[in-house]
Structures are given as C-alpha cells and as structure tokens.
C-alpha cells in the first residue's frame, strides 16, 4: 500500500515546522543475501527521507529487515549482501558507489552509529575513554592532548559525572546507564549530522532506557538527524517524526508517528499496537484470537490438595547473601515476604539486580535462603531436605526466560515432555504419550514438534514447550521468570494470552517475574516492587499502577514509555544525573 516512491511526495514534507534540508534520502532500497548463487531478498523497496533535526524510526520484529536497512546505509551489510537502490544520498554524496576508503571517511564522521547494550558494543577489554578517543584518532581529529580533553567534554555532554574517572573504566565497571552514555559519546564524538540508533535501549532497565531516550531527544533538538531502529513501538512513540513499520523485509506502513500510532491502516501495524501489554489491556486478549485447544481438565487432576484453601505459596522474611569476588557479601534478597493465593497472579517487578530472580529461585527451593521460610500449600517447603521436597515438587514448576538453555540439547520435545511427567502417574506408555499430546494441544503446538530438537524450534514454540513442561506435573503454582522477555512483541502477546487461558482452565497460581511494567500490569492481580533486594512496595495492581506510594515505583512508572506519543518519558532527577556511586562497579 505505502509504496509511492517519488521522494517528493514522501510523507513528512510539509509536516512539523517549515521544511528542513534533507540529510539522507533513501530511494527504493533493495537488499538480498546471496547463498550459493541464489539471492534471498531481505529488504524490499524501502524509501524515506531524513531531515535535519528529525527522527525517522523503523519499527519491526526480528527478521523484518530493519537492521539490515540501517547497516546498508553505512555500507556494512556483509560480503554476501546484494544491494540495489534507486539512490542513497547523504547530503550531496551518492552512497551507492563508494570505495571502502570513502566509506570509512563517512562512518563515524558523518554518520554515527549506536548499537544496543554497550556492555557488548564497546570493547570490553578497553577503557571507554580509549574507545571514544579512537573515533577521534581514526579521523585524525586534533592532537593527543586535545583529543583527551575532547573525550572528557563528550562524556560530560552525555551526562556522565566525574568523566575523568569514568574514562579510565571499562564497560563492565560502569553501570548500564553510564556505559550506554559512553557508547553514545563515542558515536557522536565527531558530531555527525546523522546518528543511526539500532535498538539503543534494548536490554536496558526501564529507567536507563528513559535516560537514553532523553539523551536522543536532546540530540535531536540540537539538530542531529536520528534514524531509530526498534522492535518496540512504545520506545519510538514520542521520539519519532516518521515511522516505517517493516515486516518480512517489506515496509507495510509508513507515515507520521501520529498517523501510525493513532490510526494504523495495516492489520500488522494494528496487531503490533494491540500486542503491547499495559494496564489498559488487562483481561483483554493481546493477539488476534487463535483456536484454543480442547481442555483436558481431567488430565490436570490435582485433587490431593484441592481441599486446601490457604495461600498456595507463602514466603516470610527471606534473606539471601552472596559473596562478591572481592570478598564482600551483599544481600541479594533482604527480608522479602509475600503470599500467593490459589488462581492468583503475583507479579514481582524490578530492575536487574533487584533480587527478583533470586526470590523466585528461593520460592522454587532451588536456592536455600539464609533466613526466612517458604511454605508450599501450607506445608514446610524451604525447611525440609531435598529428598522430602521431591514429593511436593510436582506442585510448583517454572518457566525460564531462555528456554533453549533450559532444555537438554540432546533431547527432542517428546523426550523432554515425557521426562517431565511425574513418576508413576501414568501406568502405560500409551497413557504417557497421550498425556504428552494433550500437553502439546494445551499450549497450542502441533504434534509435529514432538520429534524436533530445541534448536529446531522457533522462539515462540520453545517457550510453549517450556510451558507444556511446566504444566506436565499438573502443578498448583507456575513460576514465570522473565518468561516472555526474550520474545518479539507479537509472540509475547500470544504467550501471555496462552498463560491467561491456562490459568483460567486450571486455576493455576502464577508467580510472575518481569522487569517489564507493561507485562506485569497486564498480568498481575497483585504486585511486588523490588529494589536492591528489598520489597519497596506491594499491593494490588491497581493500587501500584494508579496510586504508587514509593518514589521508586513512581520513577519506574514515569520512565515507562507508552504508545501515547505526547506523553514523553520523565526521569526522576535522581536518575537523570546518576549519583557518582552508580558509576563504580559493586
């Protein structure tokens, strides 16, 4: 539909303030990868203009071709790529025919590039200062002394406190926020007219993400043109002037941020928007309805504890210390208490290092708490030896963020599921097999996956198998530890829907751990907010999300980007200029 490729009529002209000079114009870009002679197209007919001080966002899920597009613009598509474009112009330069040398002169100097998490995007062995300086050196900027000074200025300009010290530290010694700022500093070192940001906030905590977005906004205000690549509509919502929605290499929809977000035309875009979980989506389905599998309640008989009506899981005063490499001991979990009722979902939200996952492991009795007790279905759980626990284990199961590593690579789906059936629960092999098929049906997987190995399954399928495995022993409780964090938003939507269905069918209780407030608010009845091992606030989802009491909760909510492009994220003063202590590694 959106394939008028005459750049003069491209959307964006005449919108916003008076038309500004076009910094980058991409006309009918096609990219394919040749593999043994055959060329597999990955990007088709992409066209857009990027103007001074403007932000164009390309949104799409993995494999949509958005990153390839971005890399093509700096000539780093890879040696097997076949690029064909009506034209790619950077200012007055034609980028379709450049020598490697010319490309190098453009990269970093005229086009800056920001990748996701600086922990991997900056050389982990070198001080960030060196990395930034390198960008200057490569383009022969100034002399040694002036470069050193420039590095410090840059760090300061991206809001890094005490730059002199930070410059000497390696990425792993810096907090997520600081290192991402350092990465940005290295990208804008030579003040390029264009900055391409490829998933600049993925894998970052929500507050850090907010800081980065503000930084980009600031750059944009100062006239830098930004090409923002993201899988997350809500991230681009308030920053982008133009949005291109890509899927399977095609631009399915293209237009102003406003039109795309408020009045999406293409069903895919609509799906994408609906798929984003939030407080408002609670109770409603996120993904277009799919046929729900026949319910096998019989198979999920859980009578032995049916009578019990107290909290199915109850934790009181949990404490867990870890010894850091330098010998000091830190409390990862500190005086955490909660209780989980039958059929209820308790969300635990917090940023990395808040201790939420450790709490989950203690709840699963995979980790022994230094203090505090956990009771499962009213019985001792944390206090008893493992041998006695095994009998109870079938009552509580778990789904991890990364199913791949939680599957034995040598086992196929069938074996994985058979292995997870409680011993002796099924007399004959036939019954066991029937049960396995039932489980597959419940999680909406075809029988054909039975003989596939984890590596041969898609991310979504893997997570479904993981859920099936969790259901196999007919548990009362399922612990979901970042269970959907690694998934594309549409897949995430399907899985969330599935979880809701299953809860309804079997009256499951969920302990739902996530860093994503959206997901938490979509799923949870009650919520625990954790920070530095403490529960800073707990209450019903509504209370937490409508009337947060604790400043940290407020900060989280403020930092949470939403699809409403007018609401720009806010960052609590504490976070925007981080405290000096934040920089140094624990």
């Amino acid at each position, binding site marked *: 539909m959106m394939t008028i490729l005459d750049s003069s009529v491209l959307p964006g002209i005449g919108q916003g303030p008076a038309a500004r000079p076009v910094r980058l114009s991409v006309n009918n870009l096609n990219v394919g990868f040749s593999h043994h002679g055959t060329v597999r197209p990955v990007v088709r007919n992409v066209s857009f203009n990027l103007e001074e001080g403007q932000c164009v966002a390309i949104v799409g899920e993995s494999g949509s071709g958005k990153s390839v597009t971005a890399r093509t613009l*700096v000539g*780093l598509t890879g*040696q097997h790529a076949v690029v064909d474009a009506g034209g790619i112009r950077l200012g007055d330069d034609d980028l379709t025919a450049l020598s*490697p040398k010319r*490309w*190098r*002169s*453009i*990269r*970093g*100097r005229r*086009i*800056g*590039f920001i*990748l*996701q*998490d600086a922990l*991997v*995007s*900056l*050389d*982990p*062995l070198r001080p960030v200062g060196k*990395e930034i300086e*390198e*960008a200057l050196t*490569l*383009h022969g900027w100034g002399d040694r002394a002036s470069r050193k000074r420039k590095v410090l200025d840059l760090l300061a300009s991206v809001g890094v406190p005490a730059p002199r010290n930070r410059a000497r530290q*390696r990425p*792993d010694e810096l907090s997520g926020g600081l290192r991402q700022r350092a*990465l940005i500093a*290295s*990208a804008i070192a030579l003040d390029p007219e264009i900055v391409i940001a490829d998933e600049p906030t993925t894998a970052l905590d929500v507050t850090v993400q907010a800081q980065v977005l503000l930084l980009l906004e600031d750059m944009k205000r100062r006239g830098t043109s930004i090409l923002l690549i993201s899988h997350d509509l809500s991230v681009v919502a308030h920053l982008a002037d133009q949005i291109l929605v890509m899927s399977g290499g095609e631009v399915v929809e293209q237009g102003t941020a406003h039109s795309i977000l408020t009045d999406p035309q293409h069903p895919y875009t609509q799906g994408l928007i609906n798929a984003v979980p939030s407080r408002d989506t609670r109770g409603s389905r996120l993904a277009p309805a799919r046929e729900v599998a026949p319910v096998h309640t019989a198979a999920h008989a859980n009578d032995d504890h049916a009578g019990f009506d107290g909290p199915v899981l109850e934790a009181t005063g949990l404490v867990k*210390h870890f010894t850091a*490499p*330098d*010998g*000091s*001991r*830190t*409390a990862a979990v*500190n005086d955490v208490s909660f209780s989980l009722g039958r059929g209820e979902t308790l969300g635990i939200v917090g940023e990395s290092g808040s201790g939420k996952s450790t709490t989950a492991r203690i709840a699963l009795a995979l980790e022994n708490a230094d203090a505090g007790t956990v009771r499962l279905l009213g019985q001792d759980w944390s206090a008893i030896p493992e041998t006695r626990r095994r009998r109870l284990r079938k009552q509580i199961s778990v789904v991890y963020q990364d199913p791949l590593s939680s599957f034995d690579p040598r086992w196929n789906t069938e074996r994985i599921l058979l292995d997870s059936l409680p011993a002796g629960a099924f007399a004959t092999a036939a019954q066991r097999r029937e049960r396995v098929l039932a489980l597959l049906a419940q999680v909406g997987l075809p029988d054909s996956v039975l003989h596939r190995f984890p590596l041969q399954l898609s991310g979504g399928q893997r997570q479904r198998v993981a859920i099936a495995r969790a259901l196999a022993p007919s548990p009362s409780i399922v612990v979901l530890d970042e269970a959907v964090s690694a998934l594309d938003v549409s897949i995430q939507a399907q899985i969330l829907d599935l979880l809701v269905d299953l809860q309804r069918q079997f009256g499951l209780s969920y302990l739902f751990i996530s860093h994503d407030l959206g997901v938490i608010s979509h799923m949870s009845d009650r919520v625990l907010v954790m*920070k*530095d*091992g*403490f*529960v*800073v*606030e*707990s*209450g019903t989802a509504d*209370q*937490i999300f409508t*009337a947060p*009491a*604790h*400043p*940290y909760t407020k900060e989280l909510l403020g930092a949470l980007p939403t699809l409403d492009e007018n609401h720009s994220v806010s960052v609590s003063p504490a976070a925007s200029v981080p405290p000096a*202590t934040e920089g140094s590694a*624990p």
Partner: protein
Amino acid sequence: MTRTLSSRPADAATAARRPILSPRVRRIVEKLVAAAVVLWGAATAAFLAQIALPGDRATTILNVRSGQTQLRTPEELASINAEYGLQNPILVQYLDYVGGLLRGDLGVSYQQHRPVWGIISEQVGATLTLTAVTLVLAWVLMIFWVTLTAGRGTKIRALGSGVDTVTAGLPPYWLGILLLLVFALGLGWFPVIGGTGVDGIVLPALTLAIPLAGFMGQATRTEFERSLTAPFIITARMRGMSDLNIRLRHVLRHAILPAVTLSGWAIGATISGAVIVESLFTRPGIGSVLITAVDSQDLPVVTGVVVLVAATYVVANLLVDLAYTVIDPRMRNS
C-alpha cells in the same frame, strides 16, 4: 491496602562482611601452596618410579661406569652401596631425599660425581633459549597466518584452518628431519650440528615452533572469527576503522587467550619436546641429560630434572595467569 517501605541507603543493603585475609593475598597464598604441592608430588612420583625400576641400582652404577651389563658380586657392590646409602630402607632414602630438597640440595650425580645443581644449571640455559625462541617464532607465525586468513572468504578460511590442522599434526622429529635434510644437508644454509650457536638454533626452534603455531592457530582462529562478529567490532567499523586495524587492535586481543594457555603448556612440555630436536640437531640440553640419567639410573639427576620441569611448569602457569589478567583485566577479580 498498600504497604510501602522507605527505601534505605544502599550501603545498608550491602552488608559488607569482609574476610580476614584480603582475597588477593589469599589467592596468592593458595597459589604458592598449590605450587609447593605440585613440586613435592612430581618429585615423589619420580623418586618412587625409579625405586620401582628393575634390577639393582648399585649394579647399574657399576656397569654404566664400565660399559658392561653383567651381574656383580656383593664385594663389588659393597663400596657403592655404602657410598650412596643404597642399602638403607626406602623410607630412609626418601626422607633423606626430601630433606635435601627442602634444603635446596638435589644431591650428587652417581655418574658425574658432581652436584645435580651444577649439571642442571649448566644445561638448562640451552633448553630455555630453545623454548624462548620457539615460542617467539610460533607466535609470529601464528599471528601472521591467522590475521591473514581468519574470517575471510570461504576458500581462504578453508586454506587457513587447513594449514593449521596439517602443521598441528606434524610429528616434530619428522619435520625436523625434513628441515635438516633440506636446509642443513641440502642447501647448507644452517649447520648440521646445531650446538649452542645462534645460527644453530633456527632449525631446532622451527621444528618445535611450526606444530605449536598450528595448535595455537586452531585455538585462536575460532576465537578470532567469533570476535570478528561481536557487536563492539561492528561499533568499531561504524567508527570508520579499517579491517586490518580492527583485526590487530581489537580482535587479536580477544582471540589470543587460548593461545596463551597453550604457550604455558608448551613451556611445560619443552623438555619432552626438546629432547627430540636435541638428539636430532645434537644440541645440549635438559632433555638429553634426562635420557642419559634415566639410562644410567642416575636417580639424583632424574629427580632433579623432574623438580626443575615441575618448577618450570608452575612458573609457566603463573605467567599464564598473569598474562590473562593483563590481556583481559576483567579476570582480576575472578
């Protein structure tokens, strides 16, 4: 109802209970103890193994001195037994030996009638030189070849790793003979008798270096190609860095750790490796000393050499650890 906590200062959350010894000191102490254990273990193993050797040690000493292989009469053996206390119970001999070790005294050679320290210190130089030159050569070859071929087009990569595999599988002595045949006997570029001369070390070192380079190449190549695809490398490219620069400045450092480990292993294994080239190129060195000593059951020398080798191994490992933390500072606290 909502329950909230006033957030506490972070330091309260981190209950810092520091252990008595600082972890750095503790690690060092542990390393030293481990080293001592290894030395003791190796020495003991060597001692016991030789006690287990067939035949009578006094007879051997006597026969070796006269180039004979006969049985000897008690009268003949008496003096020797007395001289070296061979008639004492094993335990006594062992304790004497260990006692000597602790005093840094490795004993006196049965055959050369001189302190083992002398023999070793006299021969170790040649071996260490060989090791050093070998390592340098191996590293140069390896880095050049890997940087040249790793992560290129499919064909070049196949060639690169192919060469690695072949060289890694070359029997050193065989390689040595070919080198000797071609470059010493044939072209006469290098002396036939290596000796301790400068030009004499090239072929022996190459003989050991080429396979080692192959091994290190195999290990490095994998890491090298992995690093080449790492995000921070892409970032560097995005900065406008040239490919060669990236390979040398960024990738190499990430790729060489396994090679460093191998080098440590190589230093330790020199003795075993060196003896072949020593006999091939008639170089003096610890390897030959060891063989002669075992042949003549010269226990003090053998055990002395073992202690030396073990020590080399220990030191090599410490060096490797050091190199690790230099190359990858993140390892300092882990």
